């Protein structure tokens, strides 16, 4: 829409101002790593973070979320609980912005999901362009998620002393104008931005040995590939890969009651298709009993099923699963091996 410039030194004021009216979240240091968390002091915001342990999707689909409260007396109807709060999320990387599109589709198609959508509508996303690869595990360039032109309210690019701010929505513009003293970009700012963007490109390796558009076709031919058996030998079925993935959204539902058994709540919690009992039905039959079948399902979802259903690939190349997998199972290696 339009390009603005904000001094880095003015960011703290911007954040502080926004904090007056919104819950502000963003990447914060967590030991040697980073996690999205509520910002209590603008100095905590680490826009220079490499990646976060969990993706920011947790602000739209929290790890555990109440769906409703109920009484067990049998007569009163349950009451829906939708806990949403006006939120501004700073520092979302482009891979995670791409991932949001998958979630948006999943929670809107067929049956719109108010729990997700209410939060989504009340949140503003402020993206940030990656100028360096976050680490050896990511492969965003290969997945076409190294940059993005929509899906954010504001998008920052680090230009040294200033951030270039690309406005992606009316709400973003209002936010910027209300809470910061950003100025419109000049011709030379734009040139500087373009230079930064073209300079970043060669810094990122292209790791996929095929064109990403061919990935769904590759996956659809790979159902019976022996790779699933090989990987299953070292996979721990720990579920980590699903839990940290920005495009995973499966969940389980639980009822909890208080000790006098009168009141309770029903909530949902993130689940993982890598876990042993994910596909077990009453009667004991488990439709993906083998680890190999579960691994295959996971990768099929990433490379084929989601794109068929939601028009976006289920892997955005953020590298979180590869980084945290103790068995060193990485999508990029899997895709490449299937390609061989």
């Amino acid at each position, binding site marked *: 829409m339009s390009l603005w410039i904000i001094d880095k030194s003015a960011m703290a004021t911007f954040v502080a101002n926004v904090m007056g009216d919104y819950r502000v979240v963003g990447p914060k240091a*967590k*030991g*040697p*790593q980073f*996690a999205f968390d509520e910002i209590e002091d603008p100095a905590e915001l680490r826009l220079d973070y490499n990646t976060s*342990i*969990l993706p920011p999707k947790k602000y739209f689909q929290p*790890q*555990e979320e109440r769906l409703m409260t109920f009484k067990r007396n049998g007569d009163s109807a349950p009451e829906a609980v939708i806990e949403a709060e006006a939120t501004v999320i700073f520092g979302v990387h482009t891979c995670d912005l791409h991932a949001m599109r998958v979630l948006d589709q999943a929670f809107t198609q067929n049956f719109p999901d108010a729990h997700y959508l209410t939060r989504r509508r009340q949140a503003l996303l402020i993206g940030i362009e990656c100028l360096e690869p976050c680490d050896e595990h990511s492969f965003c360039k290969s997945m076409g998620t190294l940059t993005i032109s929509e899906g954010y309210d504001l998008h920052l690019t680090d230009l040294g002393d200033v951030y270039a701010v690309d406005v992606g929505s009316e709400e973003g513009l209002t936010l910027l104008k209300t809470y910061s003293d950003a100025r419109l970009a000049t011709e030379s700012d734009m040139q500087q931005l373009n230079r930064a963007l073209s300079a970043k490109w060669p810094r990122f390796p292209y790791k996929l040995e095929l064109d990403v558009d061919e990935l769904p076709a590759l996956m659809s031919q790979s159902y019976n590939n022996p790779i699933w058996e090989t990987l299953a*030998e*070292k*996979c*721990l*079925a*720990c*579920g*980590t890969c699903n*839990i*940290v993935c920005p495009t995973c959204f499966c969940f389980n539902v639980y009822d*909890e*009651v*208080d*000790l*006098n*058994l*009168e009141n309770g709540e029903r909530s949902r*919690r*993130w689940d*993982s298709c890598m*876990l*042993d*009992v994910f596909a077990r039905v009453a009667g004991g039959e488990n439709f993906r009993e083998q*680890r190999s079948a579960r691994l295959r399902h996971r990768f099929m979802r990433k490379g084929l099923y989601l794109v068929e259903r939601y028009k976006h690939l289920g892997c955005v190349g953020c590298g979180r699963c590869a980084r*945290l997998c*103790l*068995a060193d199972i990485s999508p990029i290696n899997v895709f490449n091996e299937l390609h061989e």
Partner: protein
Amino acid sequence: MAENGNGSARPKVAFFDFACCEGCQLTVIDALQTHLELVEAVEIVQFREAMTEKGEDYQIAFIEGSCTRKEDEDRLRKIRAQAGIVVALGACAHIGGVNALANLQPSLQDVRQYVYGDKWDWYNTYPARPISAVIQVDAFIPGCPIDRVEFLSVVKQVLLGKTPAIPDYPVCVECKLKENVCIFDKGGVCLGPITRAGCDAICPTYGDGCEGCRGLIPNPNENAMQDVLLKAGLSVEQLRARMTMFNAYDPAQIEA
């Protein structure tokens, strides 16, 4: 008093302990700090650690500790005969826990001699075993010690007439949900990938790798876990120690 899910009045509950540190019973007492209504929800008729009164008429028995002596078996069977529901409380009762470490030593005689010198033969202990090796157990509350929240959850499930379920997924799930920095990333080791969750990943959260006190998940990939631990720099001894700290019990040990 409202009726519970079974349509019956508050059930009578008794606590029993065998070889253990009684930390799980203590955790039950700790649960009262936040949930005093527990004493209204159930009627506690026996709890030697905390009370003198002693009722023999109970429907639910919580049993803490491992069976380490022949005479323990009789007591266990008596409890089983009386209780409609028997719940194993904590690692010692559930999987043998640290008690089973003695089973790994060269011989039980050697163990007794080491501690009691020439009076070793005053003892009648035998290899430690979980209570399920002796009696049928309806539900398990894993952990060393148990988790308060999980204890309360199992009580509620029983009151609702449900089969008490505990998580069958690994600690890594809870650990990741809490967004912890993985212990392996800090240069440590952890059994979280194959250990049953339900503790809210408390050890990794406090900077220490999982030691497996809650027992293994169903169908664990133990080979892969060992590869990961060796790669993280454990020696074979350290690996064996880690895998056995709470999971030393092996039914083969008690066949003799």
